[in-house]
Structure formats: C-alpha cells, structure tokens
C-alpha cells in the first residue's frame, strides 16, 4: 500500500521544459508545487562540465543522457497486420530522462509554427477543397490561433534568449529574416549567430534561385544574455557538441540555464527526483484527479494528493500514463472513436549529401542551431495545386557538429571498410556536407498509440505500442522538398550530389528526430480531442497535459518553440481562469 503524503496544491509529473515553466509560473502565483521526476537531478557543473561533456561515444553512441529502454520502452509496428516488437535499443528517436528533460540535450532550434498551421484543416479545405485531402488523413484545427499564442512564443524566446533575425514585426516584413513567418510583436532577444562557410554558400545559392534565406532561430547564445528571471547565459563557443549533449558553457537554453536556478529558491517548490509516477489517481466519479502514485528509487510506493495534476512528461509517456490511469477513452482505429492515442504524428526529414573538390568546411566548428535556411517550401507557403500532396518543410545548411564516429561521409560506391573506405573518409571529411529538409507529418487514422498486449516494464505495467507508417502524402512531400534542396545545393558547385528523400516503410532503427507528437491532442470537440484549447483534459478538468502530446499533427518545424508557447498559454489560463473558478474552462 502506498503511504499517503500531505496534500499539495499542484503536482507536476516530469521536470523538463514544460514542468519547469509551469512550476515557475504557479509558484509565483502562490501555489505549492511538488514536481516528481523519474530521472536524476542534473546540473551543468556536475553532469556535463567542459572537462568531459564533449564525448561522442558516451553521449551520442551510448546514449548517456537518455532514458534507457531497460527502464521503459515501447513496442512498434507499421500497421495492424504486423506484430509489434519492443524497441530494445533506441534508434529513430531518443526519449529524454532526468531534470531538464529534452531541454538538456536538444539543439536549440527554436521555431514558431505558421499561422495557417493552427487551422490546418480549415485552411487547406478553403484553399484546395476537401477532396485534396486523403480520406484517412485526420488533421484538424488546434482551437488556438497564432495570434493568441504570439505573446507566449515571445515569452519562451525571451526566457531562452533566442538568437535570430525577425522576418515580420507588427505585420511588416523585415529584410534578412523569414518573410513567411507570422507577425511578431518584437524582434528576437539576441542577434543571429555567426555563420560558418557552408551555410553562407547555401544562402548565396538560395538567393540566386529566388528564395529567401535567413539564419536559423537559435537558443544557443550569440552573446551573453540575462533573461527576465535574472538568469545569465554565456556566449556559445561553437564547440560542436550540442544535440545529444549537455552544454558545459551555460550557452544553450535549458531549464538548468533559464529557470531552475530561480525555481529552486522558491519556498513553494519541491522536487523529488528518481521517483516514477505510475498512476494518476481519480476519485470514484473518474471526473476528478486526486493526485498521483509514485515509486521511489528504493521501490517504496507513495501517494501525493494534489488539487491540480500537471502531466509534463515526454510525449509518449504522457499518453501511456493516461491509458494506464484509465483517463479518457482510448482511441479505436477501427471505429475512429476515442481520443487517447489518436493522431500520433512525427516529422518527415530527409537529406542531401554533397561532395566538393575545393572546399574546407571545418564541420566541427558547429552549434546546434546555426545554419542558413529557407522557408519557401514550408506549410502552405507555396501553391500545392497539382503537386499531389499537402504540407512542407524548411530546408538548408545547418552545422550541428563534425563528430567523427557518425559524422563522416563517403560517396556512394565506397566500401564500408578497408583501405578504400579509410582513404575516402580522410579525403572527404572536411569537404563534404549534409544538407537537410525538415518536413511536416500529418496525422492519419492508422497512426496511433495504444497499450501493447504482450510486453511490460519492470513494474509489470503494459508498454505503449506505437502504430505508425509513412503515408504517400508525406513521401511525395519529402521527394519534392529533397529535389528542391538538391537544385540549390547543385548551384554551390559540388562534384557530386546525393539525394536521400525519406522512403517507406517507417523504420525504428536509423535516427531521424525525436519530434514525437500527438496522442492526446487539443481541439474544439471532445469527440476528436483529449484536451480543450487550454490543454485541460475534457474528462478530468483538474488535469492539464503539456507538450507536443497536444499537437493534432506536426508542422514542418521543430516543436520546442510551440511546446514552450503552449506551456505559457496554459499557465496563463490556469492562473487567470482556473484558480479563480476551478472547473472546465471550455464547456464540453
């Protein structure tokens, strides 16, 4: 039997980006907040100092900062004709673990979604007609608008010190920025980062092609920054160890470098690390959460009662905990009914490799979010009539690192070992480059999450099962984006261009991206969404679910900017609406 602890106002499950933001906002509003985190406490000085943070083997190859599949994994199949098998070692994506969550080891690419992304089904239907969308595509509107989120995007960017060049301030297009972005109230808090050689060449080639290159928005610091909480970040040193790694320089925005130094001083705040929440408890009506049950590192079980439960774990684990707790109706792909597990989506990424005879790119001079990109082929920034697909993505030259175990390229036809391989690696390391596209992933009836019937975790609880495949719409989009990227790269004068459009079936093995989305999405209709527009559970109004879990489908951008904006948007609703009158914020 779990021992029952004294009640608190708010319990937070998971102390990553969203848990930290909500904890800070609600402790400031006078709430007593207990955050329960499965992983360890992590801080820059002890966990990723500059003396050993730059270790490709430990952090990238051996996944040093991530959740281990031994602790929890999920099973995977492309569709219902297959038997799902457990992901025994991570591949396609890397679930985070520990204080700071994915905010510790992200690249810092900090985007806003396009205004039309938030009313996707309405917009595409208006422009192209309902018949343009595949019958099994289940995209929907978010029930929150870009204009509503704009102040919250702004808060997240100013928390992070994001470096960039605005493309649209108060409706006026700005030179050098992304002309396709939604209107912002003010510019980025920091000027753009410096650009190395290849991104500069790419920008020239893109401009010559009639496109609109701009520096990637980066939450790695272009100069020292003090955020509105008074926390200081130092300038990025372009060390080339960003994604997969913690930053030893206090230069990458993370909960550690932006919020936690202030939050931990709040007398209203308590963190319990290495404690795993196993269940969200509800009362006999099932309509009210009473708190959570968790297991500590010694295997002892505790119950933490709370008035408000905030589910802030990583996307897939939010969905699993809802299913294991019996909250909301599980999605059934046969009847297309139910909401928990519905509309799982991902990100459709592809690449173009180029080999040059006369260039030296110094690929190790790198940062997670430097790069020059174009947005001309993202979302609905271009006319899709006659193309046979909807959606799009940004593309260009990022330079995230030249780490040698995984960062060497050889031209097609080179053996994978032996003297010829060795010679090719030596010849091409400094003069080859990988360009990329970052495409949308729309949702489908057959792409969903549920509980696996066979496999369990060490506590004996069912694993989540991922049912996912790439659909024709996304494959056509990826081919189109990769072709456009290849045309630009060709103008840079390489001796060889090799295109790698995304192809099916989806595989769990090669790393693609950790942008997992959906499964408990927000929307206007409780029949097709688990959460209302404030990320409040339709079924259990004192439960809010944060993160990309709420995305009805994914846009052609990295999700963290929107995850941060939604966290501030939800925090604002809890503070200004819910605390004054606890209950549903939107009538069901």
């Amino acid at each position, binding site marked *: 039997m779990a021992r029952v602890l004294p009640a608190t106002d708010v319990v937070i499950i998971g102390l990553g980006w969203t848990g930290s933001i909500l904890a800070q906002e609600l402790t400031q509003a006078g709430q007593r907040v207990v955050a329960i985190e499965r992983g360890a406490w992590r801080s820059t000085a002890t966990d990723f100092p500059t003396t050993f943070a730059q270790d490709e083997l430990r952090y990238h*190859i051996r996944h040093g900062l991530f959740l281990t599949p031994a602790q929890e994994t999920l099973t995977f199949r492309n569709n219902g004709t297959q038997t799902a098998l457990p992901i025994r070692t991570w591949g396609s994506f890397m679930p985070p673990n520990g204080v700071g969550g994915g905010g510790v080891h992200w690249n810092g690419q900090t985007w806003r979604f396009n205004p039309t992304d938030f009313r996707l089904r309405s917009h595409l239907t208006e422009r192209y007609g309902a018949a343009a969308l595949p019958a099994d595509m289940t995209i929907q509107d978010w029930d929150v608008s870009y204009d509503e989120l704009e102040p919250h995007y702004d808060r997240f960017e100013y928390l992070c010190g994001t470096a960039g060049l605005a493309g649209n301030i108060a409706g006026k297009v700005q030179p050098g920025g992304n002309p396709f972005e939604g209107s912002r109230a003010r510019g980025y808090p920091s000027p753009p980062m410096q650009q190395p050689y290849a991104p500069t060449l790419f920008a020239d080639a893109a401009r010559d092609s009639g496109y609109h290159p701009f520096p990637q928005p980066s939450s790695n610091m272009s100069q020292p920054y003090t955020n509105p909480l008074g926390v200081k970040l130092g300038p990025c040193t372009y060390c080339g160890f960003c994604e997969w790694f913690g930053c030893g320089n206090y230069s990458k925005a993370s909960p550690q470098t932006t919020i936690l130094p202030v939050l931990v001083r709040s007398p209203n705040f308590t*963190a319990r690390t290495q404690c795993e929440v196993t269940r969200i408890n509800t009362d006999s009506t099932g309509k009210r959460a009473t708190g959570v049950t968790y297991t500590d590192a010694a295997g*002892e079980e505790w119950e933490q009662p709370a008035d408000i439960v905030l589910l802030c774990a990583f996307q897939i684990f939010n969905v699993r905990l809802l299913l294991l707790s019996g909250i909301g109706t599980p999605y059934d792909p046969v009847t297309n009914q139910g909401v928990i597990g519905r509309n799982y989506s991902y990100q459709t990424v592809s690449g173009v490799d180029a080999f040059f005879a006369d260039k030296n790119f110094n690929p*190790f001079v790198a940062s997670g979010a430097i790069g020059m990109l174009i947005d001309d082929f993202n979302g609905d920034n271009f006319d899709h009539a006659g193309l046979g697909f909807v959606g799009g993505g940004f593309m260009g030259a990022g330079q995230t690192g030249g780490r040698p175990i995984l960062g060497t390229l050889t031209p097609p036809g080179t053996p994978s070992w032996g003297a010829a391989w060795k010679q090719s690696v030596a010849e091409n390391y400094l003069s080859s480059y990988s360009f990329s596209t970052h495409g949308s992933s729309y949702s489908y009836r057959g792409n969903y999450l549920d509980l696996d019937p066979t496999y369990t975790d060490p506590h004996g609880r069912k694993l989540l099962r991922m049912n996912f495949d790439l659909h024709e719409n996304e494959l056509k989009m990826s081919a189109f984006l990769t072709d456009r990227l290849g045309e630009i790269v060709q103008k840079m004068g390489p001796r060889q261009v090799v295109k790698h459009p995304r192809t099916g079936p989806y595989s769990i093995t090669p790393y693609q991206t950790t942008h997992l989305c959906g499964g408990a999405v927000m929307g206007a209709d409780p029949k097709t969404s688990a959460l209302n527009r404030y990320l409040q559970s339709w079924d259990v109004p004192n439960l809010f679910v944060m993160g990309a879990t709420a995305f009805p489908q994914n846009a052609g951008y990295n999700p963290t900017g929107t995850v941060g904006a939604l966290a501030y948007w939800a925090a604002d609703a809890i503070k200004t609406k819910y605390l004054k009158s606890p209950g549903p914020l939107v009538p069901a």
Partner: protein
Amino acid sequence: MPEPSARLCATRRYLLGSCAVFIAASMMSGCSASSLANSATDAAAAPPVQVTPGGWVFFTPEEAALVQVLVDRLIPPDPTTPGGKDAGVAVFIDRQLAGPYGTASALYMRPPFADGLPGQGPQSPLTPAARYRQALAALDQHSRDTFAGKVFREIPQDQQIAFITRMESGNLVLNGSNGRAFFEMLLANTKEGFFADPIYGGNRGMVAWKMIGFPGARYDYRDWVGRHNERYPKPPVGLSGSAT
C-alpha cells in the same frame, strides 16, 4: 566567454538551490534522501575513467588475437595512419564488452524474443558480449573447417578479406545465424574505437582525428566561425589532454 564571476556565481547559486530542494523533499517523504545518494553515483555525473593498456579484460588471448586481425582488416594500416590494431581498437572493444555495453544493461531484454521486420530493430536475446563470444568461436571454427585446420589469423590476408566480405554480404553462417548481424556490430564497434576519444583505449595518439583533421575535444571555435575555407591549424586534444 561569460565573466568568470558570473559563471561561478550561477554555478554556486544553482548548487545551493538544488541542495535545498533535496533537503526539503527528504523531510517530506524520505524519497529524495535515496535520490541524493543515487544521484551521487549516477552514471551521467561521473567523469570517464581512462582505459589503461595491458592485458585483456573480456577477451581470451585467442579471441584477442583474432579481433586484432579483424580490426586491422577492417581498418588497415597505411603509410600515414596506423590500422585498427595499432590504434588500439581491440583494446577498446575489449573494455566496452567488459562494461555496461557488453552486458546490455541499458537495453530492453525482457521476453518474448521474436525475429521482427528490419524496421523493428535488433531483437537478439543475447548481449553484445555473448554475441562476440559465440561469433568469434564460430569464425575460427569455420576457418579451421575451410582451411585445413588453420584459424582465421593464420590464413592469407586476401583470404581473410574474402572471408569478411562473405560475412558482410550475409553469405556466411556463423553458429547457425547469419554472419551479417555480427559483422555490422563488429564494424560499428571498430569505427567507434578508431574515432572515439582515446580515453576509451582506441584512437591511440589521436591518429584517427589527425587523419581527417578533427581537433577533438577543443571547446571553443569562436575565432574560427568566420574564417571560411581555411584549414584549422591546431592539433587535436582529447578529454585527458593533448597527444604526446
């Protein structure tokens, strides 16, 4: 660089703060008292330990001799850069197999095990250490059967290369299983050892980094972002210092 005082201050404030959290939490439930103890030994927070050469930890002498030859065929020596053997790749693999990688302690190893589709990822019930032990024995046995009792390291180099090529193409059955899966693991581990920080036993003298022009664990290239199309001049450094 941030002002030293600012960075120090941020660190100190942070540490003080996190201690306060632990104390507050442990008074509440006792949970974080154990958390504190655990996080002190948490793998993420410990500095890496320098691998020291000499002796084999996982491999038997026979296995080690075979692996030395294999890694030298996969990454052969050339006039400017040593091959896998002299770069310490076999030592690297030996120490990796003796540690958490070899025992698959981070992996999901619960049954039932079934062969899946390629897109479902590896499903072996065996740990990497067990896979090496089986495959290396099978490899030498296969060599003895084919080459009149000679083990792999005793056959001519061109035959060794042909042997490995058959493994790569999946045309060699090792101990009842396809040799390709073992080949892929061996090749991945060999490249890891060749290119990883020398602290793990391979990439001795940072020879692999020198070969390609990677400066290693240097942590500051601010002066070089804007220097386009120029070769970076400094030699590599590792986590435990510069090459001798």
